[in-house]
């Protein structure tokens, strides 16, 4: 085994372990803040896997979009809300767990099926386009993938309008679900007094 292949193998093992353990942590950890930060680590490791596959542009785009935008916004939202309240016990937790487990197992079996049936033809290093992939991605985005690319922007626009409506509560005077008038005052956290009374 040459040094390059050994390095690649070590990198692949470490990155895969980080992805798997990090993803488990995202799901299983109690603290939502830790989950959000671990999610960032998982995204970074996935970018590392792209780098190992010679897809440097995709790796950088992954970091920019998922770590720099999506994950930062998730953490941002968590910290702006940041309510320290105990979660209410859910009454039918068992049936919910059964349903979610079965859905996850179905998805997993689908993925395994794809993995087994698809022919993963490995192109030899001579065939890989490497740095040229940036140009190739651009060509595809502006020719045969133009419609999905543009439709995605409509989706983002819809999400943005929804976010603005939700954030600016003066747009709607009534709550959508309950029909009660909306409290227009600032939400303030109930906080303990900083200095205890001496009397």
């Amino acid at each position, binding site marked *: 085994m*040459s*040094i*390059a292949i050994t390095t690649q193998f070590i990198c692949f093992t470490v990155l895969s372990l980080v992805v798997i353990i990090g993803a488990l942590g995202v799901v299983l950890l109690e603290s939502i*803040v830790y989950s959000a*930060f671990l999610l*960032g680590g998982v995204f*970074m490791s996935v970018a590392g896997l792209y780098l190992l596959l010679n897809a*440097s*542009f995709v790796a*950088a*785009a992954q*970091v*920019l979009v998922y*770590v*720099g*935008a999506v*994950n*930062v*916004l998730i*953490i*941002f939202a968590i*910290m*702006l809300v940041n309510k320290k309240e105990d979660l209410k016990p859910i009454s039918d937790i068992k049936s919910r767990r059964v349903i979610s487990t079965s859905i996850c197992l179905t998805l997993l079996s689908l993925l395994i099926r794809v993995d087994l049936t698809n022919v993963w033809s490995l192109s030899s290093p001579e065939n890989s386009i*490497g*740095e040229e992939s*940036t140009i190739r991605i651009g060509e595809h985005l502006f020719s045969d993938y133009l419609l999905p690319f543009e439709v995605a922007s409509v989706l983002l626009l819809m999400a943005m309008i929804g976010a603005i409506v939700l954030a600016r509560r003066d747009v709607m005077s009534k709550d959508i679900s309950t029909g009660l008038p909306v409290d227009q005052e600032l939400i303030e956290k109930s906080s303990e007094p900083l200095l205890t009374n001496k009397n």
Partner: protein
Amino acid sequence: MEYGLDLEYSFNEFLKGFGLSSEIAHIIWLPLPMLLVLVAAVVGVLVTVWLERKISAAAQQRIGPEYAGALGVLQPIADGLKLLVKEDIIPAKADGILFTAGPILVLVPVILSWLIVPFGQNLLISNVGIGIFLWIALSSIQPIGLLMSGYASNNKYSLLGGLRAAAQSISYEIPLALSVLAIVLMTNSLSTVDIVNQQSGAGILSWNIWRQPVGFIVFWICALAECERLPFDLPEAEEELVAGYQTEYAGMKFALFYLGSYINLILSALLVSILYLGGWGFPVPVELIAKFLNLPINAPFIQVFTASIGIVMTVLKAYLLVFIAILLRWTTPRVRIDQLLDLGWKFLLPISLANLLITAGLKLAFPQFFGG
């Protein structure tokens, strides 16, 4: 343009002369440029800190550091030593893991970005194809570190500082990336070496600053905002937030933030000089001078000479910009948070979009000037 010093090749050939295989020679070579650039970055920080002290003193009619070495040049080293031996405090109610990881996450992407800073045709760590895009991607990791340290400090000023830092860097990343995109459009490449070579045709006349004046100003404003320098230093606004996300930090962890912000400032200045001021190019093309003096451009001593001129020019341009940044810091008042976001979203973003559109139009209309 395939001439130039290739130190890696010569070094590998030199080691192969001792009977080492090319792989081992490559492994021995790999850490050398990284260490060199790391040392260059840290020395650059020391120089910048000294400049900041001296220039701020001059702006306020003081003398500034005076006793540590001649003209106080050893003052930054004394500062560094002090921070190194200070007690490392983690507040009792802070989150220990996140509190420690925060400063690291702020510093590492900044240092990694030095990967793409070229000081000459072959004088950079790695001429990766995605070049300048790598820097944009890496600089987007930083807000996570800031949010992390702001949250972990368990202090309302820290949290507010972290949130402000994240909001600021998200809003200024977009015009920054758009103005870089206009340059990339003209160069037809993301690589920093190609961007400099595209400007090297006619010396100072072919620098991008003449073709992209709007992009230059937008990029410089955004770079200052990303570095949290004074017109935009809201995340650590002393009068409102104590010191923002750094409030609870002391000792070496604080030093990491300090180092990170100054390395980022130098990096931004270097990138402005690469993108808009011709990088390592001399105001008059070196090839023309060599031709005028009847010197062979490929002779070894000329090569060493032009490479040193290249390094000096890059550093000179970068430090000129650092000087402007320091002068700005000590002469301008701070903007308010709503003014900051207004400037980013309602002014810089439309302007940089229009700049991109006009650049694309000009590229189609005058390909010989704007096609690269």
